[in-house]
């Protein structure tokens, strides 16, 4: 049944005490065989299933998720969305995604609350300025909205910011007006609902344990709900992708680390845009509920514990109070971590591999939420056509042998 949401459907349901809403998705048991299995029910995985069904007409698809949909990094990120990346390949990928974001609520008929309040990256020294100006120039030539803001312009936009009286004064910023934030859970749920409608079997609490191959070809996947055969498998398991790849004998250049974030107690609106600073490591935006959503850093060591050291939180908070003196009296409500898979060049992998029928979408590190619809879209293409979309061609696995990296390290503000 197609679910049609609007104020009218809500009014109708209000009359019956909201007891008769249809289920967002079914809870099917896995079948024996699928044309394609997507492992990982985060935004990227659910989106991949959605686009496979919608744009490539695949009928017999399953998505397996070991916990609950959107419970990975999709459900625990600071939701910053932007496309002002330095290198052409990255810029095209993230811009593709941003364009999809702009129509997603309408397309899914599910409000993902994409709020284009703009994203600002601060410069704190001469080196930052050089990097940022270079990036702004590249963005403009790539047709991506991006501007250089003077200190005065920043002060106007974010009056609570302390620009001068701090150890590393704010000297300017880049700004992407079309960037912003979105409701992270909604995109997972929206994709899941519409994929389910098109017949995708979404199977929760089903952990992929071992990817089985034979003669260099995919056979299927051993799961906590038994063995499932498949022609194609797309692994989109974020922090756990490396672990799964290893079961198929593929070594990926990924390291999994905890990345932390925190929210403050909710207050009335005070900051109207997203402000990021790589130099002093503080990222902040304010949610529609009123909390400050603050991104912190990763721990230095590999870990699958969804928590990190308090030192990381401390680093971020001391930068926050320095940049925003009004936050001295704010309080941290909750801190958490997610496991991000980090690639040596800080760019993702959307690629096939030596095993026929096995595809990877991973390495998004600290900044893949913004890419969710775009990554899913080109990954679906890659799986369906067995070759990359031109947008993700550069993000292949071969680059680590050839040396043709897409190195976003140099570009200030890679993260988030």
């Amino acid at each position, binding site marked *: 049944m197609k679910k049609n949401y609007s104020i009218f459907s809500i009014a109708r349901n209000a009359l019956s005490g909201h007891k008769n809403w249809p289920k967002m998705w079914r809870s099917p048991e896995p079948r024996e065989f699928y044309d394609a299995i997507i492992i990982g029910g985060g935004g990227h995985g659910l989106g991949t299933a959605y686009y496979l069904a919608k744009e490539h007409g695949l009928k017999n698809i399953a998505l397996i998720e070991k916990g609950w949909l959107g419970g990975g990094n999709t459900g625990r990120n600071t939701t910053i969305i932007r496309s002002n990346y330095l290198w052409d390949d990255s810029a095209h990928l993230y811009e593709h995604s941003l364009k999809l974001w702009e129509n997603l609520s309408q397309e899914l008929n599910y409000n993902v609350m994409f709020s284009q309040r703009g994203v600002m990256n601060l410069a704190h020294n001469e080196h930052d300025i050089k990097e940022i100006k270079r990036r702004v120039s590249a963005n403009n030539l790539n047709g991506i909205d991006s501007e250089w803001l003077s200190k005065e312009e920043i002060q106007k936009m974010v009056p609570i910011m302390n620009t001068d009286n701090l150890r590393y004064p704010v000297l300017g910023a880049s700004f992407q007006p079309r960037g912003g934030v979105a409701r992270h859970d909604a995109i997972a749920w929206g994709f899941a609902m519409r994929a389910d409608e098109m017949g995708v079997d979404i199977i929760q609490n089903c952990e992929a344990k071992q990817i089985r191959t034979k003669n260099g070809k995919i056979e299927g996947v051993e799961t906590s709900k038994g063995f499932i055969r498949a022609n194609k498998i797309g692994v989109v398991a974020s922090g756990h992708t490396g672990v799964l790849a290893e079961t198929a004998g593929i070594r990926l250049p990924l390291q999994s680390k905890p990345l932390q974030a925190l929210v403050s107690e909710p207050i009335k609106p005070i900051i109207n845009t997203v402000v990021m600073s790589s130099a002093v490591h503080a990222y902040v935006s304010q949610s529609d509920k009123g909390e400050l959503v603050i991104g912190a850093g990763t721990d230095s060591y590999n870990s699958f514990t969804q928590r990190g050291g308090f030192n990381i939180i401390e680093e971020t908070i001391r930068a926050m109070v320095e940049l925003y003196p009004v936050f001295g009296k704010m309080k*941290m409500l909750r801190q958490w971590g997610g496991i991000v898979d980090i690639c040596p060049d800080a760019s993702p992998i959307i690629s096939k591999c030596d095993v026929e029928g096995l595809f990877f979408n991973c390495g998004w590190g600290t900044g893949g939420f913004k890419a969710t619809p775009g990554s899913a879209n080109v990954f679906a293409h890659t799986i369906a056509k067995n070759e990359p979309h031109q947008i993700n061609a550069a993000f292949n696995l071969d680059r680590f042998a050839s040396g043709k990296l897409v190195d976003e390290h140099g570009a200030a503000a890679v993260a988030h």
Partner: protein
Amino acid sequence: MTELKNQNSPFIHFHQKISFKFDGIKYYGYKGDTIASALFRNGIKLIGRSFKYHRPRGIYTCGIEEPNALVQIISEYSEPNVRATVKKIYEGMEVESQNRWPSLDFDIGSINNVFSPLFSAGFYYKTFMGPHKSFWKKIYEPVIRKAAGLGKPPKEFKAISSHLHHNVDIVIVGGGLNGLLAAVSLINTNYDVLLIESDNQLGGILNNSSKINEINGKRSQEWIKETIENIENSKNIKILKNTLVTTYNYINHLIAVEDKYVGAKPAEDKVNSTLHKIRTEHVILSNGHIERFLSFQNNDLPGIMLGASFEKYVCRYGVIPSKEPVIFSNNSNSNSLIQTLLELNIKPKAYIDSRSGEQIEGQLFDLIRKNDIPLYTNAQVKAAYGNKKLEKIIVEDSSGGTSEIATDFLCVSGGINPDVHLFTQSKGLLDWDEKDLTYKPSTPFQNTITLGSASGQFNLEEVENEINKKLKIFSPNKIKIKIKPSTANEYQIQKLWEVAAHKSSMWSKSFIDLQNDVTTKDIRQAISEGFDRIEHLKRFTTNSMGTDQGKISSINALGIVSDLLDKKVNEVGTTIYRPPYAPLSFAAIAGRNSYEFYDPERKSPIHQWHIKNGAVFEDVGQWKRPWYFPNSKSESMHDAVQRESKNVRENAGVLDGSTLGKIEIKGKDALNFMNLIYTNSFTKMKPGSARYALMLGEDGMVKDDGIICKISDEHFIATTTTGGAANVLACMEEYAQTEWPNLKVYMNSITEQFATFNISGPKTREIMSKVFSEIDFSNEAFPFMTFQFHEFEKTQIRIMRASFTGEMGYEIYVPASSALKIWERIHEYGKEFGLIPYGTETMHLLRAEKGYIIVGQDTDGSITPIDLGLNWMIGKNKTDFLGKRSLTRSDTVRSDRKQLVGIMPTNKEDQIQEGQHILLQETIETPVPMLGHITSSYHSPTMGHTFGLAVIKDGHSLIGTKAFASTSDQKTIPIDIVKPIFYDEKNERLVS
């Protein structure tokens, strides 16, 4: 309203009146009162408005678990969301209610309550999408955002907060009955013990209820006093009061925050709070339990409160919120409340228990009978009604009959939970107790011991036994304790997750999360939509996401869900308990590591001289470096740099290069080692000579550069970039230890030992000969790229002939303590030759004219030496060095990689701008293909126009062709691509 005091409370100083303001009106309380207890004294019940529906809300609890009574403290820089139930009043305090407009009593936002049927769980996902997508940004979102938040943003304030680290053996969290006993058992043992209590009084339950009247034959307050004295006399135990443990991390790392101003206005110039960071071997959690509430229709009305909290107000705060409260319970925890009230001659208006008469403890039954309290067994409160405060309740008994009770106060108790937050933070596992209907600590993950209520041990007779058993591993003092409880020893409860709604309508609400306005209806809806995993349910409904994190309600929600899904509660699980236990102040977390101490400033040994001479500084990493030296207040940076540059080219200039990294390398295998670390070969290099060298990462990309001085095959001195100093040393150490442990080599950083002065310009030789008159600076005696050690006024200095500006020059290395003396001497003798100090910007300009790169500016981690045209620096005969193999990968040998070139504007008046890109076309239609970007660009005083360095695709073969450079206003200028050298291509000036 007459003030109801419990004069017996030992914690309230009834002779010390305190005045404070709430919403502009002055009230009185007593020393020791919280805002909440003081407001009760004044008969105030309406404290705030709820988040979504703006419903009137009062005080629900008496502690940190409070979901409703959040206020703004105007007198403390307008701190928002402060719990009125914790914060103590002081003279002159100003408090304001939150989330209401124009006033608490008349709040326009409460219109939301009328539309509440539409604001069902997740309604916003399903609406605000039409008629056109632009409506979201222009209309819906601004409206939604306006409604956000509870309190108002605070005012600017740099709170003083300090940090304190502790290393101890045992931490006891919670100084209640069990915490005190645990401490007693550790008196004078060999353990360093820290006892942490969030309250300003030790004693916990002994202070908060009349459950225990006597311990070991003494009145409980007497016992506490004596016990504390014993503990304080013990050298190995330290007590921290007013300190809340918020975080229990891995390896028994605890974070606790101490409030230094309890019941007083924080001073601005003193430490307001201390963040304790504690490392310990063992943790004893004796942090007690939390009472939960009950869900029934309109269970949020002001006048409804937890039973144990009511008792705490009476016992701890000496205030009686109501003279005739009704009590509604499903368990034995409220028994002592009745006892407490009767002792004060207060008769509850009714006692309603969901249990049957037989299930109720005999002791309680007798008490109720004896005192003639109206008793409803097998009964439930179906609904509460009232306008902004409780007026009446509807009770349904076992027969299904309902009765109405008019009352202004209702105490509810839905049972108690061990406070497992910290235990689960430590990664201990919980187990559901079917008898006590709560999660209890089960398997600890770390060295964690739980005691008393915190362990789910609710039987007072068991206290002695539990402590002696669980603390045995410490060979402690044995505890002997005789507790005389006032009511039943044992805890008893009946399941009651939710009371079915009384006459249900579209508007009827039983709340499950008071702060976020989540109703049981929302829970049902979420389950029906398929959000049946507890984590989905939380995110869809926002249940337990408020500032209280569902402390009094989350278990009830689990119960409801388990019933709806027909699953055991254990199968439903819990959401994750995350730190902090209660909201933790940003200022406390930042401590003293912010503001003036955000990051250390590293200063050159002659920093003061630079200040005196008007230098403008630049941040380079932590270093402060002179950027340029304006000769007057009005001279612009551009003018200063042009002047400085010109002067160096024409006369001479000197730069303070002390921040450069310097490393001394020595050992039998030093030569071998250096050959492996750098691309260059040092084998044939003569002792006493110097060489420009490159260091690569294993990926073949340029990581650092510097000049290497060879003293002998066993002894080298290397310089590094300022920013790369630490990394280069670390990299050398790493390879020496891990890859080539057989190579005998040691290295020390000597960055701090020596100041470095780079003097250059055509007059340099004359100046140097004057400054160091004994030294022969002739070309023959001191050729380019050599160095010499000299003694100067009994200190050893090193002089190297090298240049980064393109002019002939020297680098002088002098011990830091002699730096100022020699620097001043250089200026003194250089004056007549026109010597001036110059800053980093001039250095950058001059080196760019000469085509010298700056690592990190002209390279970005994607550039090889070949890309830079520095093939000659690669030791051709070396079998190995860092990154060598990477230089022959298929991508690194491509001829069309981005390569370093020079660029000049074809029309000399055009400005080349750093960071802009090189294009093959004049017009910009995006996306336009880019060849690469301009890495450095300056206005050259020598050439009289701008020029630049750029890395562009296939650059080396494009030299001699024309292209276009973009500008920041999206136009292009024509440029010539040239060799990356603009000055003295033959190096004549260097070797002259």
